[in-house]
């Protein structure tokens, strides 16, 4: 643990690629396992440190909420009090009651059961799309970061094309081509559209790793490319991979519910977007039938919050300054100091730089 925190700090300090790789400020992952001791214990500890980004309060809270929804999705049949499509003409537009906890729809379907069953589609599509997207992102990102020359540039250009082309209109047009697209097709399309961001971030990080000493040493030892990438590099990319996975799940869930709401996806498979589609079409928003339109929207928001909590945790692990800045400022405040007070910020060894007042001398890159 102690070595990990140390490398973390140095990892964030180097910052060589910050200016050039683009908009994500923190692409420096600790070079956790520089030494090459042998034995399974080392592998286990490597595996442990590969998932260290989840060991903080924010990530754990997010993972707990996510696990809750996954459990609901798995046990939907047991949990739902009614079938989501069970019509009851005697109970239309009913507000919440003891029998129908979240009221009923325009044809007497139980909203709670619809929400519970709707979880399934959202969770399945979210994870499947993110799996596809992350696989492509790792392949393209790591290869284009590791190789050099026109191959690298070409893959990078491909990534940027996918970043620039507007995704949602393309999905709408592609989805319109299918008469009745099954869920896995939707997931595949969402995944194929959503991989570019992750690939871009991974490429930048791989490029900065490529020239680090431990990779150079592995290459000098004559290790095969496969081993260099899987054993030496991937553990150091785990935090970014996790972050891009979580980001894609969020995007896929928003994409799925939006497409369902628009009505591009058939309304026969229930998910939270479809419920909102029906609610909107039946005028629930105009007639204040809040029990119909609030729960599915809140569920999307809560799962979104859970995913961004996980990402906050990963961000703070990757870039410790995000966490320490606030803590340090609060600690100083307790002592009666202000973090923005110039006097407290003076460091004696900084004299030489004072003659350099140009606005942007920082993150100079490697030139």
């Amino acid at each position, binding site marked *: 643990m102690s070595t990990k925190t140390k490398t973390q700090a140095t990892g964030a300090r180097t910052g060589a690629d910050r200016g050039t790789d*683009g908009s994500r400020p923190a692409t420096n992952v600790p070079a956790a396992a520089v030494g090459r001791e042998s034995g399974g214990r080392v592998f286990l500890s490597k595996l442990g440190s590969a998932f260290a980004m989840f060991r903080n309060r924010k990530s754990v809270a997010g993972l707990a909420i996510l696990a809750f929804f996954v459990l609901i999705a798995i046990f939907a049949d047991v949990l739902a009090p009614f079938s989501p499509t069970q019509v009851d003409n005697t109970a239309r537009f009913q507000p919440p009651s003891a029998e129908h906890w979240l009221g009923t729809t325009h044809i007497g379907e139980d909203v709670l059961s619809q929400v519970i069953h709707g979880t399934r589609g959202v969770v399945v599509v979210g994870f499947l799309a993110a799996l596809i997207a992350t696989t492509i992102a790792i392949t393209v990102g790591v290869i284009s970061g590791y190789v050099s020359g026109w191959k690298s540039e070409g893959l990078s250009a491909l990534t940027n094309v996918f970043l620039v082309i*507007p995704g949602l209109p393309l999905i709408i047009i592609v989805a319109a081509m299918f008469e009745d697209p099954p869920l896995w097709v939707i997931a595949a399309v969402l995944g194929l559209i959503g991989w570019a961001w992750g690939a871009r971030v991974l490429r930048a990080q791989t490029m900065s790793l490529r020239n680090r000493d431990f990779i150079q040493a592995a290459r000098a030892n004559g290790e095969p490319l496969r081993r260099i990438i899987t054993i030496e590099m991937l553990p150091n990319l785990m935090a970014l991979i996790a972050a891009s996975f979580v980001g894609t799940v969020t995007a896929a869930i928003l994409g799925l519910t939006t497409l369902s709401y628009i009505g591009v996806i058939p309304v026969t498979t229930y998910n939270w977007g479809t419920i909102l589609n029906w609610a909107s079409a039946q005028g629930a928003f105009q007639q204040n039938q809040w029990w119909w339109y609030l729960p599915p929207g809140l569920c*999307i928001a809560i799962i979104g919050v859970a995913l961004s909590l996980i990402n906050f945790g990963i961000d703070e692990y990757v870039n410790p300054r995000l966490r320490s800045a606030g*803590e340090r400022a609060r600690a100083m405040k307790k002592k009666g100091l202000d973090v923005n007070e110039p006097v407290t910020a003076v460091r004696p060894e900084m004299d030489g730089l004072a003659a350099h007042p140009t606005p942007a001398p920082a993150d100079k890159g490697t030139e």
Partner: protein
Amino acid sequence: MTGVQPQLAELDTDALEVGTTATSADGGRARVPWRYLGRRAAFYLFTLWAAITINFFLRRMMKGDAVSQYLSRNRNVSPEAADALRTLLGLDSDKSLLEQYLDYWVLLAQGDLGISLLHGLRPVTEVVSGALPWTIGLVGVATIFSFAIGTVGGAVVGWRRGSRADALIPITTFLSTIPYFWLGLLAIAVFSVNLGWFPIGKAYGVGMRPGWNAEFIGQVLHHGALPIATIVVASLGGWMLGMRNMMLTVLDEDYITVAQAKGMPNQRVLWGYAARNAVLPQIQSFALSIGFIVGGSIVMEMVFSYPGIGKLLLDATNAKDYALMQGVFLVITISVLVANILADIVYAFLDPRTRQAGV
């Protein structure tokens, strides 16, 4: 370094001359960054080609036949007229794929995007250009608001790290995880239906005649207020979080310490030094997120039934009007590319390194 010059538009150089003279005052030997601009120009041309090619193949992959659909709705069209329609829409498959592809490029070069079956056989370009100003106006204003508020807010939150302002970050993030269409529908339910402050959807009142008079402009502003407000609320979080995270990194840099040690006023350190550097990645993510913003506008236009280009696309999709769908997609892609080029120019302005890369 010289081979790329012909690709540059004159406009770019104008904007950059201004930027370079600004730094030459600092004493730096700055030049126009031909290399950087050339690479960007090549990239945009490549993307444009890719988008147009995707567009071409989309039509070939489509199953249904727009003309049959149209005929089933309009019985009084003669078979000859139907054949002519197919030719116009590029649906006749006598030619080889390559020939079709070349024809497609020729038609594009002439500015011919085909005709829209949905809108009474009017040219697609005409239909699209009628809808485009609404989208660009509304989404543009909303995006600029959101970017400005988020970036300034993020700078302040980053500067006051550890204070109560930190709470803004989770709040705005929560707002941006809410699906946009739901937020829009809620806003309509609360502000239009229950409170009656704003009209429900549309760009202007029924029976209004578009024109440059005070009444019409007032109507447009009144109708646009709710969509703009919801877009700003939904997208604020991303800008604020990005700027705040970058500020925390920049504030740790030595030149900030030096600036403060020199006794420079805090306001100047904050805006002239810290925010000035932290905003650069923001501009880059701005360029990259334009595609998402445009995608979001489709949903906005559906929720508010706003007569923009997104509504056009959805209507075209429902009616299987392929020519219109493709035209809209092409126009959306080109708008995104133009916005990206603008963001690149702004970036070259703000970041002296892109200008001095060749020195």
